[in-house]
């Protein structure tokens, strides 16, 4: 968690397809490393589990809290990667605790949730980065305050972004829900035979997970609403058009998998049996995961998801049939009878999250520059804010700054004069020669003193 600060800088700098691979594969190497180490070391799994769980809940919450404040679309997504790694970590933590408590059901559910969420995150996050790349290609900017109304210009990109956004919030009928559901299940199985302290840990991870979900919803309604909906907030000098079909094709493939996992989770659960049994068999219990009762719920979930989609289609058809007989008109958006609205009057990304940012002021760092409106005939007023990371400031920037200023005291060595550098070389050689000699003399002197 305190080592997350590189990610939000790396993502906006990388081109979109690289960002997709970065969040899909690259940052999963950390998860792979943790899992590999768990297989290698045979030790006190309970303690490890608690440590992983605590760090994960904190990084999940902190990641999404910062994500909400971001104005740069890719930076926002980068902070969401931190959050999702947190969710994966919660799964791994619970799995370890299950191993430590010799509870194979909890262990298998925890690891299964973590592994499935790893796959899911790779899918929806890369889809989000690719669509962000499409937006960048079309508009040449990633500042969400300048975007808006893209759904009319780039409808396919908008739909793909929407699918991924719903999936990342863990909302059914897409794949994010399945893995979060498995993790919730693990938590509830854990409560059954847990005692006081672990119950507290459990209830706070439930709280953390629910809050992460809610905050993610706030964040992605903001991102989708501001980037794709409403009116354009900025006049671009070039025409904005949808990217080519070949660019969209791989995106549809990813979207297909997102929907597929959401609707057919059982298939993927069968794939998970082998890797998960690797973990559950550590403690010499021969346990095949998912044979019992613990995950038979996935069948009705997929039915419910199908039912939901069928019902939505049904109501839409009904609406279409009814609409044929009625008159449909289109007009301006209702602005309380004000008839000349401009795009500037729309809710911006910052105003959408303003009450949130006031509430969470304590955790956030939001330096702002403002010039207030004054007088009866006000001249230009402005307001600027740049979200920053409190942990980055106190744990990375300040120590680095202190270290730098300490090293700065020795700057006079590097004065650029060749003579001095030669002198340093000679001094170094002399020191190498004389220090052992002096040392020997000192030893001899001490020996002498001892003999006296």
């Amino acid at each position, binding site marked *: 968690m305190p080592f997350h600060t590189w990610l939000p800088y790396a993502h906006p700098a990388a081109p979109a397809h690289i960002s997709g691979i970065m969040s899909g594969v690259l940052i999963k190497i950390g998860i792979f490393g943790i899992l590999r180490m768990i297989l290698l070391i045979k030790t006190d799994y309970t303690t490890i589990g608690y440590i992983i769980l605590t760090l994960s809940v904190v990084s999940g919450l902190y990641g999404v809290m910062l994500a909400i404040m971001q104005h740069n679309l890719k930076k926002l997504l980068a902070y969401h990667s931190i959050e999702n790694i947190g969710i994966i970590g919660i799964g791994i933590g619970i799995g370890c605790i299950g191993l430590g408590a010799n509870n194979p059901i909890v262990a298998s559910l925890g690891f299964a949730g973590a592994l499935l969420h790893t796959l899911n995150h790779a899918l929806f996050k890369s889809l989000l980065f690719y669509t962000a790349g499409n937006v960048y290609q079309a508009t040449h900017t990633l500042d969400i305050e300048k975007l808006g*109304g893209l*759904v009319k210009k780039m*409808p396919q990109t*908008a739909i793909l972004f*929407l699918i991924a956004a*719903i999936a990342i*919030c*863990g*909302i*059914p009928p897409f794949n994010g*829900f399945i893995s979060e*559901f498995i993790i*919730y*299940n693990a938590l*509830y199985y854990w*409560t059954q035979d847990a*005692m*006081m302290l672990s*119950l507290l840990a459990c*209830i706070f991870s439930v*709280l953390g997970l*629910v*809050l992460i*979900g809610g*905050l993610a919803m*706030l964040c992605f*309604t903001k991102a*989708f*609403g501001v980037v794709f909906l*409403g009116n354009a907030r900025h006049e671009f000098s070039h025409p904005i058009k949808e990217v080519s079909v070949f660019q969209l094709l791989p995106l549809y493939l990813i979207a297909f998998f997102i929907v597929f996992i959401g609707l057919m989770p059982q298939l993927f659960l069968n794939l998970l049996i082998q890797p998960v049994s690797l973990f559950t068999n550590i403690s010499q219990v021969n346990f095949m995961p998912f044979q019992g009762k613990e995950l*038979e*719920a996935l069948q*009705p*979930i997929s039915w*419910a998801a199908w039912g*939901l989609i069928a*019902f*939505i289609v049904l*109501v839409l058809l009904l*609406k279409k049939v009814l609409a044929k007989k*009625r*008159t*449909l*008109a*289109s*007009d*301006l*958006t*209702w*602005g*309380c009878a004000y008839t000349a609205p401009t795009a500037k009057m*729309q*809710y911006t990304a910052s*105003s*959408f*999250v303003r*009450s*949130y940012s*006031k*509430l969470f002021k304590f955790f956030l760092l939001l330096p702002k520059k403002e010039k207030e409106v004054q007088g009866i005939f006000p001249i230009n007023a402005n307001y600027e804010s740049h979200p920053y990371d409190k942990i980055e400031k106190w744990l990375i920037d300040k120590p680095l700054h202190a270290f730098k200023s300490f090293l700065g005291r020795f700057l006079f060595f590097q004065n650029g004069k060749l003579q001095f550098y030669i002198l340093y070389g000679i001094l170094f050689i002399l020191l190498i020669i004389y220090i052992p000699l002096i040392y020997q003399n000192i030893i001899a002197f001490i020996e002498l003193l001892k003999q006296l």
Partner: protein
Amino acid sequence: MLSLILIVLASIFFTGIIIRTKSIASGRKGPGILQPIKDVIRLFKKGAVYSNTTSFVFQIAPTIYFASVVMAMLMVPFGQSKGLISFNGDFIFFAYVLALGKFFSIIGAMDTGSSFEGMGASREALYSMFAEPAFFVLMGSFALLTGHTSFQEIFSTLHIGSYLSYALATLATFVLVMLAMIENSRMPIDDPKTHLELTMIHEVMILDNCGFDLGLILSAGYIKFAIYGALIINLFIGMVPYEYAIAAFFVIQILMAISIGLIESFIARFRMSHNTQFIFTLTSVSLLIFFGVLMILGKIV
């Protein structure tokens, strides 16, 4: 199946009773109890005006909102009889499917490009985020108490025996009533009958909806009320035979509607900036329930 019929019946008269109570309390004659349903039928028959700014999102959002609420309704049990959809952990699905509806109603509001609707959307997103932990902790505590994770099993094995569990049921009722008020944007949180757009949450989000869409949104609201009422009733009727249980269902639904009407008549809306604190208080009340469950199970050392 039984619960589905009962909830649909209750949703028909629930909002009407609230409005009737309010009109009696303020000394007006007021509309009949079935007026809200008549309104919805009238809306279904109307045409629609769509804003130039909107896209397909605005068109499908009310439908998905309605579908999500109906889906949630199918999961609510009634005493011993299961809901149409029932599985282990269905309350998680319940909460998340409602979140799907909220997601779409929020982006539907953002789609109009109106500053008012953006304001409502922002508030809705924030408040629903704070309300969700309370529900999860509440249901989680009951799951811990009964050892089951589906609505029907939790409610049918929930015995109200000792004094402590009476206290728990009372607290749970309080939390569920307040959640129903938040979910439906009713009085202490949001005033549905205010005249100023700046002070609304839910109503301001649907300013641009009309005709069929508005009908869907309104009827989803009525159903939501009945769903939460049914959940509260389920706390108490675990083992009671059906003939009493059904009577109790209607009595409690009517009582809840009347009390909501009375609350709305005599209490002012909270300050918007303090709403979040109030909503988060619900989570601490649910934590209280959680500790109560721990005491019953003897897990506190």
